[in-house]
Each structure stands twice: as structure tokens, then as C-alpha cells.
């Protein structure tokens, strides 16, 4: 909780401020909020890759600051918007590093150990019932996908090594798209599946 307060120094965005942020991120092309979600995801990954514990909070803090600048200045000269997001995110990251250094906990080394053991444990602590719920949910979400999407990801993600590469190559040729485009298409469907799973229930949300 202490950490949450230290990151979120300012109140969250008002509806008006949030609307202005979305419009600025869209940069003239109405994406219906997709651009915001996409950039937010990139920011979360950026902070996470830098091993920040509260990657989501830091991404939100980045948007909060941009929003305040929009509110105070009316516009932001740096373009494209994503570049400005990175500039602000970098400051947020550095501040978080600094904050960490200021609040070195006595049991820091033990925290690192716990992190390491957690990486080894992964799914070990979940109950059998919870796992069953999750698997059922995943199956249900997979069944709910349009059949062409379901077929595509089953085809794309099955097998290993050479068989997988050959299968993907064949699939891309059949669809008349590049391997890169196929990969992105498959990832989007998989991402939608993940979102569906997160909506399954309290057990599944912890997936």
C-alpha cells in the first residue's frame, strides 16, 4: 500500500482529461480507445522488462503526467505521441529506481530469494480445483472463438521445432500473408483469448 501511494502522487484522471488523452494518442485517427490500450500495454512491458514491481501503476502514472501536461499546456509539441510517452515513461522509471534506492528494505536480499523461489515454483501452489476451473475456462473461451480464429491458432501454435515452422509456413501461404503478419494475427487471437480467460471468474483472474 505504501508503494501505491508513493507512485500515485496525483489523483486519477477525470473523464474530460481521459478523453483528451485518448484523442491525443489517436493523433487524428479515431481508434475507439485501442491506441490507448496498445500503448499502455507497451508501457507495462517496458517497465516490467526493467523489473519494476508495479509496472501497471507506472504505466498509469505515465499517462497521468501526460494528461496533466495536456491540461496545463493545451498541446504537446513532441510527435508522434508514442515518442512523448516514452520520454515521460523514462522519467517515471528513473524516479522509481531512485525511490527504490531511498527505501532499501532490511530484508531486501530475502525478497530477492523469494522472487527466485517463486520463479521455480510457478504453478505449484494452486489447488487442483482452481486449476480445473482455469482449464475449463480456457477450453470454454477457445470454443467461443469464431471457428476460423480457433482453427488458425490451433494450427499456428501446435507442434514443436521444425514441424511448427513448416506448418506456419504452409498456413501463411494458404492465407496469402507473410509469416510476420500471420504471427501478429495469431497473437491477437491469443490475446483475445487471454482477455476472455481473465473475465471467467475470480479463480481464472489469477491465471
Amino acid at each position, binding site marked *: 500500500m505504501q508503494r501505491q501511494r508513493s507512485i500515485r502522487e496525483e489523483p486519477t484522471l477525470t473523464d474530460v482529461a481521459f478523453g483528451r488523452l485518448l484523442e491525443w494518442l489517436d*493523433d487524428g*485517427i479515431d481508434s475507439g480507445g485501442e*491506441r490507448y490500450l*496498445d*500503448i499502455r500495454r*507497451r*508501457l*507495462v*512491458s*517496458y517497465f*516490467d*522488462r526493467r*523489473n519494476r*514491481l508495479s*509496472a501497471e501503476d507506472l504505466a498509469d502514472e505515465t499517462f497521468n503526467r501526460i494528461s496533466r501536461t495536456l491540461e496545463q499546456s493545451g498541446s504537446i509539441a513532441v510527435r*508522434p505521441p*508514442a*515518442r512523448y*510517452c*516514452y520520454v515521460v*515513461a*523514462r522519467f517515471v522509471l528513473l524516479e522509481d529506481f531512485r525511490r527504490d534506492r531511498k527505501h532499501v528494505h532490511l530484508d531486501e536480499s530475502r525478497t530477492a530469494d523469494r*522472487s*527466485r*523461489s*517463486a*520463479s*521455480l*515454483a*510457478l*504453478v*505449484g501452489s494452486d489447488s*487442483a480445483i482452481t*486449476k*480445473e476451473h*482455469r*482449464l475449463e475456462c*480456457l*477450453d470454454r473461451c*477457445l470454443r467461443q472463438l469464431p471457428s476460423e480464429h*480457433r*482453427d488458425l*491458432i*490451433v494450427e499456428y*501454435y*501446435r*507442434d*514443436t*521445432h521444425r*514441424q511448427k515452422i513448416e506448418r506456419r509456413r504452409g498456413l501463411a501461404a494458404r492465407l496469402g500473408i507473410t509469416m*510476420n503478419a500471420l*504471427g*501478429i494475427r*495469431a*497473437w491477437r487471437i*491469443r490475446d483475445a*483469448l*487471454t482477455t476472455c*480467460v481473465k473475465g471467467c471468474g475470480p479463480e481464472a483472474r489469477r*491465471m
Partner: protein
Amino acid sequence: MPQTEQLVPDRQHLVRYLLDLLPEEEAERLDLASITDDQIASHLRVIECDLVDDYVLGSLTGETLQQFEARYLTSTRRRDNVKMAARFLDAVERAAAQNEAPGAGVPGARVLLSAAAALVIAAGGAFMFRSAEPSLPESTVQTLPAQPRTDESPEREAVGRTPVPGPVGTQNQAAARGSVARRDPGVAALVLWPQTRSAGPLPTLLIPAGRASVVLQLTLESTPFAQYRAGLKNPADNEIVWRSGWLIPTTSGSRTSVRIVVPTVKMRPQHYSIELSGRSPDSTSEVVESYTFRVGSR
């Protein structure tokens, strides 16, 4: 959306970025690109997804595997990604098996698939066999009693067996098993028990034609370790012909097991043993179980 004019870095370069192996300056350049360049951002996601999948499937080796475990798995969010990927790939494998099986899409096909698969193998001792459906409730798993083998013919094995009364042994299901088993169910999966519990003839795996991989579920008596690695050994010369990555056991009902996906190119019609090693938090490992089975000829 705006794109940088630079070329998208190759896969290996992005993998090194994800594993925090690039010099700081280059990592920062990619940090920027990962947020501002739509193409690189998408490419990075796809590559991260494949990297995690490769870890789950035990395909990572050497430095990549080492760095993945030492660096990538240090974040809770990324560990969650790995958990999700394991479940996703499991679901994909099950869906693929259903698609391949005759009668796919028919109500109750999962049960038929499982039962049919149980008939395809030559029944040995107290082992269990099921389709690539490791999460079915316990009641759908068919336990076959020990019976002497008299014929090696796969066709005889498939159709010659009297349906065994059991949890799914109703008249209709037995008939369904027979009819499905006459056709090639197109699935290859085997549940193995540790050698100490397997009495009688060896469980036999028949690999359907064209199948690239088979699923082996290695049942654990106890789970003192968080991660396990399997080695497929040719008993003739004690050579390990294939090794999995470090895998996390899963629990279904009362059974805990490690699931491995073995490429069929590594297998020939002969006996095999599997050595399962457990790894402790200090990275030492020891062999904890062994399993034996036979690959039958088709």
C-alpha cells in the same frame, strides 16, 4: 501509424533484448522502438510469445534457457505469462487432438477419444492411457488390467480387446470405443506410472502415421521438487536420445504429473526408459523416478 525507417531486428536480436543480454545502449534503443514503432512492438510480442512457448515445451537450451530462468522469470508478470502459456498450449493440444480424431465435434467426443485411445495401445500392466486430454475428470480415464499379450499386430490390439467394464464401461460407450478404435484415432498419448508401480507387460505406445509428437504424462508418487526434467533413454546403449526442458508438475484430481511432448523422430519401435530428474532451489538435480514403455510398430 508512424514507423521508424529502420529494419525490424532479427529474431535472435530481439530474444537477446527480452533476456536482457544486449548492451545498455542497444537495449535503450529497443526500449524506445518497443513503444514508438508499431512494427517492432508487434514483432516483439510475437517473439516473446514464442520464447515463452519454447520454454514451456522444453525447447530452450544452453544460454537461452539459462538466461530465461535467471532473468526472464524474475518478474511475477512474466511468470504469469509462462503459466498462461502452459495452459494455453495444453488447450491447443487438446483441441488439435479433437480436430484430428474421427467424430470430432460430436457431443461426447472427448470421452470417446479417451476411451478409443485406451484401446489402441497393447494393454500391459496397471497403466493408464488416455487421449491428449490430461485434464479430463478422473472418471474418464480408463485403467486397464494386466493381460498377457499374444499378438503384436496393432490392428489386433485395436479391435481384439473386449471392452473393459470400468468408469465409462456402459454398453453404448463400449460400442463406441470399439467403433472408434477400428479407425485410427490419430492421437498418441500415454500416462506412465513409475517403474516401481508398473507390474506386468510394458505399456506400448503406437504412434499414428504423420504424428510429429506424442504426449507422455509421467505420474509422480510425490512432488518434493518444483521442477522436473525428463530424459528419454535407449536402454540398449544407455544413451539419452532426447531431453525435455525443466517442467512444472500439474495436478488433476488426485494425480500429479509432468507432461512431456516428445518429437516422434526421436523414437523407433523398441523399448525406452525415461529418467525423471527433480531440481532443487539451489539448482542441484537428482533422478527421482524412472518409467519404461515400448514403442510399437505400425
